[in-house]
């Protein structure tokens, strides 16, 4: 199958519900391991609107002697439309996430969203493979909920530096996914190994579509395998943002759609794009 044909099938469908500015209340903000934190916010109105793969643009609280000026985009990690809560899983890297890490239960969080176009499952996809590494998990986790609701079978390949860094196996397992883990520590996460693992899944007929996020290396691998075996899918892309609403054109990535390459906005035209649309960077 040619890449643009794949693209036509896999392009995510536009979501009509616009984001808004909500003031959530922090319920939990706990360390998952040395570098990741898990944030649970009560924001009932926002929670009702979310589609899997969408994100919020979060206003970070001030740090004692460091300025955090722009909002920071964060995928919804778990959504509870009825419970009224939204969950985030984040990696503490720079000033923004260090500031988020200071939030305590009871604090108010200014969250703009839900934003962007999320994942959508083509009815032809009955068995999908999710390949996630590091914080990419946060973005891909809602797929588990979506797939379960649609009766789609998931194989989740989770990659991390070490066993300790592996998170959220249960999110996928609870949704009935088969979970395979690979780590740098065990020497099982290099591209050739993962490729072999994916080939096995293809051969076993468990890969109607691929889903991934974040890592350029893994995206390239899936694109190559997908092209060779006629498998489409979706990828969630990251880019530095300012507005999150589509106004500023800060957040573009090169996307090949309808035969031409265009700078599309990750916040408004994505963050989910067709697996073969996204030019690796």
């Amino acid at each position, binding site marked *: 199958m040619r890449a643009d044909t794949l693209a036509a099938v896999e392009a995510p469908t536009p979501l009509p519900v*616009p*984001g*808004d*500015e909500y003031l959530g209340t922090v319920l939990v903000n706990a360390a998952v391991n040395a570098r990741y934190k898990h944030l649970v916010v009560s924001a009932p109105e926002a929670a009702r609107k979310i589609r899997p793969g969408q994100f919020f643009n979060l*206003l970070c609280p001030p740090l004692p002697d460091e*300025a*955090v*000026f*722009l*909002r920071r985009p964060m995928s919804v990690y778990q959504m509870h439309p009825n419970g009224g809560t939204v969950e985030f899983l984040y990696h503490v890297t720079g*000033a923004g996430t260090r500031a988020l890490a200071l939030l305590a239960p009871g604090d108010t969080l200014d969250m*703009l969203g839900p934003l962007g176009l999320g994942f959508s499952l083509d009815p032809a996809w009955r068995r999908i493979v999710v390949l996630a590494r590091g914080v990419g998990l946060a973005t891909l986790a809602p797929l588990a909920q979506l797939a379960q609701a649609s009766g789609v079978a998931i194989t989740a390949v989770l990659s991390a530096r070490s066993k300790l860094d592996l998170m959220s196996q249960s999110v996928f397992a609870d949704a009935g996914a088969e979970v395979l883990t690979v780590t740098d520590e065990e020497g099982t996460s290099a591209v050739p190994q993962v490729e072999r693992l994916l080939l096995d899944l293809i051969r076993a007929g468990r890969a109607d579509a691929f889903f991934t996020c974040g890592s350029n290396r893994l995206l390239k691998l899936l694109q190559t395998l997908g092209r060779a075996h006629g498998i489409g899918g979706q990828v969630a892309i990251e*880019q*530095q*943002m*300012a*507005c*999150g*609403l*589509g*106004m*500023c*054109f*800060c*957040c*573009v*990535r090169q996307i090949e759609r309808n035969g031409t390459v265009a*700078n599309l906005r990750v916040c*408004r035209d994505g963050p989910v794009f067709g697996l073969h649309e996204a030019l690796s960077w």
Partner: protein
Amino acid sequence: MVDLGVRIGSLALRNPIMPGSGTFSEELARVVDLNRLGAYVTKSVTPGFRDGNPTPRVAETPSGMLNSIGLPSKGIDHFLAKTVPFYARYAAPLVVSVSADSPEDFAMMAERVSVPGVAAIEINISCPNIEEGGHAVAMEADATYDVVSRMRVRTDWPLWAKLTPNTGSATASARAAEAAGADAVVVANTILAMAIDLETLAPKLGTGTGGLSGPAVKPVILRMVWQCAQAVRIPIIGSGGIMNATDVVEYLAAGASAVQVGTATFLYPKAMVRIVDGLAAWCTERKIARVTDLIGRALPSAAPARRAREA
């Protein structure tokens, strides 16, 4: 009821708050009621298609942000077909920002955008992200005069010249724009600046340098407005670092007749509407009947009246 109305030449605005070019688009209509704004200013449109600059296009700085968008544009044809009609359903006047690579193309753009549905033309001769080394037309008075006067002969629409802060002679460019027939000056575009990534030791922006906006620039642009208000008679539209209603009061007192809000909308999509409400509340509290009463109150020419009031 406070009267928030202001005039920019022949154009009456219901309030002095409008977006800055490139910090606003049709998407905002999904979050705020556009009818509450004083005017709409479009992203700068160019004659043909432009892809914009390489990424990263944004970086954060203390109390501000750098951008290097590089004027991506679908070109004037698409703009006239899609963007102009979109705003027809909203109440406030539409200001079209135009950019081009040559004085002749600027003149052609003036003619092209002089269509019903367009209330005024803003001339972006001050973007620091398109020419080599951050150079821009508005850095020199002569070049400013050239572009504005060529546009003037091609249109009867109001012309607003958007100036640059990246010059030691902003007042000279303002006077040149006035002499060439501009109906207003917008003071100002972003300040040429940069940031360096500590991991790679390379510039953070794909293009090296970019334009600084946000609260960090407010003191600098406010000074430019104050200087230009003493140099020209045409109205001034202030733009730089406005986050709330009291920032607008500062700009009006410095001599601006209206303001443009940019970066604030990225942080708070409803910022402009909150500012309109905040400005009305501020005036009400101080028993100021008309927002125009604030214009120019910090100018040296107003000092005697100010001292009389205080005494």
